[in-house]
């Protein structure tokens, strides 16, 4: 399940973000009649076709997997949290239907009707992401029910559950991340092309469109991420302590940047410490008390080493991407064009994979940080998982299939990127 989600998130993020770029490129193409815009649009549409196919099927795995692996979760909580999954199916319907129309309808619709068909794809994608993340948000901060003494769940309120306290921030965080990942990935493809000497208008535009989307959102994501952090500080103190590697409850808690937590010694070494920094970030007051891991028994703590490091990596990537944005902004203010030096292009090429590292790390923090709970404070992961044998086989088979599909998909996309652009221009003309 974890592997499935980690795999799915890559395709889903691009499938959510890419339609927006398509809409922009096709709008420009239709307005200006410029074949370069149309070539970009066609190229991205082909990539989207592959990504959504893989994203759709890996998403299906997840809907089955909820029952296969987590009968204890769904049997008990399905009535509370099934609603967003069911609604997600409709959002996905809209996305899939109009994607079919969009990808195969070039010759069957007028240019503007075709462009219009792209909107439901973009909206459906964002809506499905929103619904699915509300379910995950609920697992962090479960609301919308009451439990009675024998453990039964009563007074179910699915709408309340869907709109739980984590929903606004987590859904925003994820959707912004999806757009950033798309922007930087597209940017990276053209940055690599330009580094190889293809510095034509097609590559410049591809780079600019991707990077502007990614770079504009990078600072936004820092603000949203900060809000997400404060929410965790309010609602999931053990998770915050694991993210920050804070072992003891402390007033004036320092912010540890980097560092390696040592569970055996109960401390975090080698980090840079900013006095009072964590208290200030979490509660807006440098003197505030921040709860440490020592407040719960070791059995109730997540894997501190992994969660802390994953969190540090995610934050580092986030700031690095924002830094790249600052670099681009300074150059733009001075010269009115994006930087195109070798070093900037190299940085842009690295930024693509970096956003996915950040995405996966963020997912690790969310999921592993919540452990040992699957529904925070309510159901333990160990009680929800299936008692069926063969989980190990499943895991191996899943990894094998996904490695195969991932490799095949990467090969195809690389091939697509390498196809000479003349084909693209021809496609645009025909």
């Amino acid at each position: 399940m974890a592997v499935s989600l980690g795999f799915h998130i890559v395709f889903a993020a691009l499938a959510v973000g890419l339609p927006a770029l398509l809409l922009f490129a096709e709008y420009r193409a239709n307005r200006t009649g410029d074949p370069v815009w149309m070539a970009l649009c066609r190229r991205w549409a082909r990539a989207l076709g592959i990504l959504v196919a893989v994203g759709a099927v890996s998403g299906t795995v997840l809907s089955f997997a909820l029952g296969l692996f987590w009968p204890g979760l769904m049997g008990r909580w399905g009535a509370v949290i099934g609603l967003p999954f069911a609604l997600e199916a409709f959002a996905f319907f809209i996305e899939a239907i109009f994607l079919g129309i969009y990808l195969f309808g070039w010759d069957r619709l007028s240019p503007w009707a075709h462009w219009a068909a792209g909107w439901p794809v973009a909206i459906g994608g964002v809506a499905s992401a929103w619904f699915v993340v509300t379910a995950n948000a609920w697992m962090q901060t479960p609301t919308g029910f009451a439990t009675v003494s024998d453990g039964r769940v009563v007074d179910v309120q699915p709408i309340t559950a869907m709109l739980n306290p984590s929903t606004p921030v987590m859904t925003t965080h994820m959707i912004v991340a999806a757009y950033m990942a798309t922007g930087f990935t597209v940017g990276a493809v053209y940055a690599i092309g330009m580094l190889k000497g293809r510095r034509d208008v097609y590559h410049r535009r591809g780079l600019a469109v991707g990077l502007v989307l990614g770079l504009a959102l990078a600072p936004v994501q820092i603000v949203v991420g900060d809000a997400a952090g404060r929410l965790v500080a309010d609602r999931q103190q053990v998770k915050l302590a694991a993210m920050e590697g804070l072992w003891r409850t402390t007033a004036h808690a320092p912010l540890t940047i980097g560092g390696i937590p040592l569970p055996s010694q109960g401390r975090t070494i080698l980090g840079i410490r900013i006095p009072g920094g964590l208290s200030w970030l979490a509660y807006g007051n440098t003197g505030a008390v921040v709860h440490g891991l020592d407040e719960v028994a070791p059995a109730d703590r997540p894997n501190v080493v992994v969660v802390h490091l994953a969190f540090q990596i995610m934050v580092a990537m986030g700031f690095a991407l924002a830094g790249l944005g600052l670099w681009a902004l300074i150059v733009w203010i001075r010269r009115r064009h994006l930087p195109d030096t070798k070093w900037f292009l190299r940085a842009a090429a690295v930024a693509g994979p970096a956003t996915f590292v950040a995405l996966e790390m963020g997912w690790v923090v969310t999921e592993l940080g919540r452990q040992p709970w699957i529904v925070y404070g309510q159901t333990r992961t160990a009680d929800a998982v299936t008692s069926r044998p063969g989980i190990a086989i499943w895991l191996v088979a899943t990894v094998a299939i996904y490695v195969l599909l991932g490799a095949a998909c990467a090969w195809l996309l690389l091939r697509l990127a390498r196809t000479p652009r003349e084909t693209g221009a021809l496609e645009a003309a025909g």
Partner: protein
Amino acid sequence: MTTFQLEVVILVAIGGGLTLYWLLGGADFGGGVWDLLAIGPLREHERTLISDAIGPVWEANHVWLIFVLTGLLAAFPSAFASLGFALYVPFSIAIAGIVLRGAAFAFRSWGDRGSAWQRTWTRVFGVASIVTPLALGAAAGAIASGRIHIAGSTVVASLWGSWTSPLSIVTGILALASCAFLAASYLTVEATQRDEREMEEVFRRRALVSGAVSGVVAMLGLLVTRNVSPQLWHGMLTRAWPFAVLSAVGGIASLWTVARRRYRLARVAAAVAVASVVTGWGVAQWPYLIVPDLTVADAAAPANALRPLAFGFAIGIMLVAPSLFLLFRVFKGSGSESDTPSYH
């Protein structure tokens, strides 16, 4: 509206989703079956027709399965959890099939014609298209077979035995044969629209063969039901028989119309047959959602959960129905458009 009615309304909606998945998604699997069986000199031609027919619609058709699964999860959570536990193996097989089928279909349109890449993914696409309906059909048979026992929150079901009963074997084969029939009969329409007489004949023949096989297997299914599931048989005789008759009429009519080259009418008849099999199945095993222990009423989520779900279904269907109409109109519309869908 009382809880009782609401859960039935939602169950009917889920049944409708299942019917559409069988009719639409099932035909896409059937296309994969014919793709694998394309061996003669016309094989490339057949494959092109199949790919063009499936290409624009398979993702949308596939969502019906997600609709069924998530609807079941939200409205009947204990049934969803029990099935996930009991049908662990066939569902796992189906997942693998679904993933490989979809990915292989998307991948194979790339690469050079006849390249190793394309041959491999074509093979994967075909095999996965056979395995998936078999596994899903067997799982459906298991729900009706009475081999999944539920007491409180404990599910007792053999890892292998629960879905390999004679009934499951019949339903698995029926699923596969009917998917092949649906695909072949739709492909005759595609072929006529494109004015490809040769293809029309090829798929007309295949539709007749697979349709006849489906009919024989369905009758075999009735026989097996009588012998091994007295409870289901009783429901069939007392309540569900009109649907059994209707499905037989639909099945025969679809064969007859294909034979008479009235392909569009055949689609309608096939839809009637499939819808009445699904409805008849539900009516025959009523009031059980999973025979023989879990009733619909027991499995249903509380009214508080069902109300927003029903509301969501209503809005969702209002959005999806016209969109689907548009999709099929653009790609499967009147015969005036003879050009093939292009995928540049």
